């Protein structure tokens, strides 16, 4: 390794450490990390006058506006992790946007009580003494069940959109 390469490695290590310190928010136990961000769509006009949708960090939101939650996770250890499940609550002020969930290699499930989870079409709620299929307004939680191991060094991303009531 040349001096130059060593220097680069050192810098990248230092940078990584600094990033970790700076963010200070990526939590981990053992060898897994999970992090979440919230964004919203902003429409801007470029120099050609075309309207472009882009995701910007969401700090404020108005009723009717949509936000996108992105959850990234990573196995930083040496061993594969089994039974990986990511669970995210859906605040009562938010309504899940139908069809917005993204999660390759994951089985998508919802819950209407935070206790039992199932595929959207299998969930029911009681209303006026009748049982009906749950709708996005009823969902209190969304979760992704990984269909394979999360091997050492691997990472994944899941995402969903919700609309502010």
């Amino acid at each position, binding site marked *: 390794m040349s001096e130059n390469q060593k220097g680069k490695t050192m810098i990248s290590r230092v940078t990584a450490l600094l990033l970790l310190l700076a*963010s200070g*928010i*990526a*939590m*981990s*136990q*053992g*060898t*897994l*990390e*999970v*992090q*979440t*961000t*919230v964004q919203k769509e902003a429409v801007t006009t470029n120099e050609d006058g075309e309207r472009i949708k882009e995701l910007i960090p*969401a*700090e*404020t*939101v*108005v*009723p*009717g506006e949509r*936000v996108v*939650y992105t*959850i990234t*996770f990573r196995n930083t*250890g040496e*061993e594969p*992790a*089994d*039974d*990986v*499940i*990511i*669970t*995210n*609550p*859906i*605040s*009562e*002020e*938010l309504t899940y946007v139908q069809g917005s969930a993204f999660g390759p290699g994951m089985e998508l499930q919802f819950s209407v009580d*935070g206790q039992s989870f199932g595929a959207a079409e299998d969930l029911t709620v009681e209303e006026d003494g009748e049982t009906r299929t749950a709708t996005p307004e009823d969902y209190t939680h969304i979760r992704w069940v990984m269909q394979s191991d*999360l091997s050492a060094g691997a990472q994944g991303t899941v995402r969903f959109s919700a609309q*502010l*009531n």
Partner: protein
Amino acid sequence: MLARILAAASCGVVLCCLANPALAEGTPAGTVIENTATLSFELDGNPATITSNTTSITVVELIDLAVTLQSPQTLVSAGDTNQALLFSVVNTGNGTETFQLAINSTVSGDDFDPVPSTVSIYFDSDGSGDFTAGDIPYVPGDNDPVLAPDASVAILILNDIPADRLNGDVGFSELIVSSATGSGSPGDDFAGQGDGGVTAVLGTSGGIDTVRGEYLVSDVQVSIQKSQTVSDPFGGNEPVPGATITYTIEVSVTGSGTAVGGIVEDVIPTFTTYVPGSLTLDAGTLTDAADADAGELNTSTTPTIVVRLGDVTATGSPRTVQFDVLID
């Protein structure tokens, strides 16, 4: 501190800065929505759960309103004063907002400009839907309506009708309602001016709504005249038991306007009994039942003749209703 405890429980927590419950028109301004994801897994057969960082978004104030006209086209006569149009103003935003009211009667596209009355904007304080003595005048800057989310207020605007207007002339008058925080284009924002110091953002209304009402000058006078003839069982005209009284009600319209939706109602006198099948309108028989034809005998309370004349003009006048009763 509360936030930290709740976040540690890894639920989506809602910290509401206001006492308002969740409202139909949207999450209250100032609400903070936090989110924490949970990751569970097994490593070497050992189950573990970790939580993510917590994101936080603040619901800002959306300024929006909806004004709707409650009055139908209002019939007036030339020279009338204090003619009211009723509007409903609803705060469709998610914060408490002060609104300012204004009247504009110089609207294009009509036949004449109504003249705003000396005091031209009132709260319909008694909820009567019309201008009455109990209604409180609006004084700009003094009693601007302050509406909570979803709350509404009924507003009357008053105009005088110029004396020289002719039958059929239409005059428009508008109620303009704007947010005291500001108005402009949807999406414009006002930093720190929302409830609890959050940003206020203009919704689709742009913080202002203008709605038009309509006056129609209707030069019409309606008169009604009732007469009776008696025929007794003995061929005479004595009002004795068993004698029949034929009542004739004549409705006349003069002037160039239209009397809209005229209804004749007449209670069957005591000590008499309606003769079934005797009701006529312009000599055409009407059934006694409440059905498709224009009249009936309403027996739900005191027996009463009801005949719906519809719209009557001078050329279609007079309309004549007749029926018989027997003296008991």
